[in-house]
């Protein structure tokens, strides 16, 4: 894997929120082309901040983030598209229009927009409710649209900000598998932020464990499971072993995170 090129590279990345909250403290991380990386950690460890910086939504004080060798600093691009936790479909567009929106942004001709959009609507299964407005469909259906509009864009890296945490059990599993297949079939790179240990281990090739306040990388664990992950049982012994390992690294952090949460009253 290490012989493929680095697609996203963060060096000594530091982000401080006023007055004095160190969301990220000299974080360095390299993500290779074609990788599926998860970042996991207690709430407030800066994992979402890291993702937002990589997406170009947030500034930072020190260090550097490079995407394909170009500096990322508050510049958004569809090549680094995001699947959000709160989904963020544009409420004045139907499901289909939401999916076409990004494609039109790319400047594709009309029939191309329709061809690519319809293809992904079919794959993810948005077809049945494509003319509905966001307020007319369920949370799970919304996230299917949220995923389809990013997949259709064909980004170089898909940034996932806890995309499954607001979904029901069934849709969550469905979307996890869809994401894995998308990553596998299209040879994509995925950066997946989550607080769910099983999810992180089951989906990714590398799990980055972070600690909170200041947000730092504690350990990076390689997950040695086949790439065709959807064929692996979720209760496979190896999966559980990795999950235990990650959980034991995080247990201390989680406890501290909870204390912080109580103290600051989130």
């Amino acid at each position, binding site marked *: 894997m290490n012989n493929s090129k680095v697609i996203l590279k963060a060096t000594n990345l530091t982000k401080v929120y006023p007055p004095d909250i160190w969301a990220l403290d000299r974080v360095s991380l390299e993500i290779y082309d074609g990788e599926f990386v998860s970042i996991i950690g207690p709430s407030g460890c800066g994992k979402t901040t890291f993702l937002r910086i990589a997406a170009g939504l947030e500034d930072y004080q020190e260090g550097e983030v490079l995407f394909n060798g170009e500096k990322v600093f508050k510049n958004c691009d569809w090549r680094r598209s995001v699947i959000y936790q709160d989904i963020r479909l544009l409420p*004045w*567009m139907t499901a289909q229009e939401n999916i076409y929106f990004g494609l039109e942004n790319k400047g594709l001709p009309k029939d191309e927009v329709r061809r690519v959009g319809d293809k992904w609507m079919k794959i993810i299964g948005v077809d049945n409710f494509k003319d509905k407005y966001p307020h007319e469909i369920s949370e799970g259906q919304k996230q299917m649209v949220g995923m389809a509009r990013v997949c259709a864009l064909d980004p170089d890296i898909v940034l996932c900000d806890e995309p499954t945490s607001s979904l029901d059990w069934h849709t969550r599993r469905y979307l996890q598998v869809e994401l894995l297949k998308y990553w596998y079939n299209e040879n994509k790179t995925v950066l997946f932020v989550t607080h769910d240990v099983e999810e992180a281990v089951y989906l990714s090739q590398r799990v980055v464990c972070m600690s909170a306040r200041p947000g730092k990388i504690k350990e990076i664990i390689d997950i040695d499971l086949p790439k065709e992950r959807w064929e692996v049982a979720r209760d496979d012994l190896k999966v559980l072993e990795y999950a235990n390992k990650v959980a034991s690294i995080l247990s201390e952090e989680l406890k501290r995170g909870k204390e912080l949460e109580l103290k600051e009253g989130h």
Partner: protein
Amino acid sequence: MSRGLKYTAITSIFLLIIILNYLIPDAANRPNQPKLVFNGMMFTFFLFALFFLVYGHFMKRQSPTRVRTIMDISLIFGSIFFLWLVTIGKLGFLDPLRWPSPNQVFYYYLADFDLLVVKSTLATVKRLAIGYFVAIIFAIPLGLIVGRYPNLHDRLYYPVAKVVAPIPPIILVPYAIELFPKIDQAVLFIIFIGAFWPIIVNTIYGVRTLDVKYIEAARTLGVSEKRLYTKVLFPGALPSIYAGLFIGLVLAFIVLAVAEGIGGSHSEPGLGWYVLYYADLFEYDKIVAAIFLIAFVVVVWTGISDRIQSRLLKWQRRVE
């Protein structure tokens, strides 16, 4: 009483009015009223209500709440016209100069057809439409831009708007008439000012209260600056813009009426001029006719704009 019976009774009020109008002799102080136009109007109302009674209620092709609302409103209008006709037209209450009978009032739509219904109405609608739309064309894009840049808003727009926006635009009428060579241009300018402020204020409010998460989502989908305005900020601010359009129209119409009253003449008519001109001549029947005509213009205008509004805003969750 069953609903069908009740609705039938309401519908037949309009027929009853027509029959009474023919059967009961005119009041002594208002003899020989021309009845044709009023009766025709009542017959139109009757057909309208009848449509909702038969098609909407008995054939169940319209929602029951809609039929009920139409019937409630028909009852209100029916009673008003009934009482007006009987007390003033037939029993002869109140003095005939200031309180004309409905027959007299509606007759002017025929008698003064050219000046009132055609020239004045067209002139007013034309001025209103041009001034209002020019205001929309300037205020909405400007509002979107100002709302997007906090510095521009805080440092320049807000201090000016806070002081200037609430100034009654009417006080600029004398100045506008002085500065513009033609009355029509002055009137348009004043309508523009009147409608401009409420629209821009509400556009900016809509942009600034639009949840930033939608802007972020659009940006990570690679939106260009131009498409951000047309596809995100504008539709996102639209509910608020509509509130501004409503107030803007009210203000524009008030301002227009005054400006016409001050600057209008027989050769440059308008509904506002018509009312104020005949006020000086104490022809109150013509004034009432003009007021009803204004209400009619408003009904048509708001009806069209409601259609557009509900189409553009159909993405919003309906209020239950």
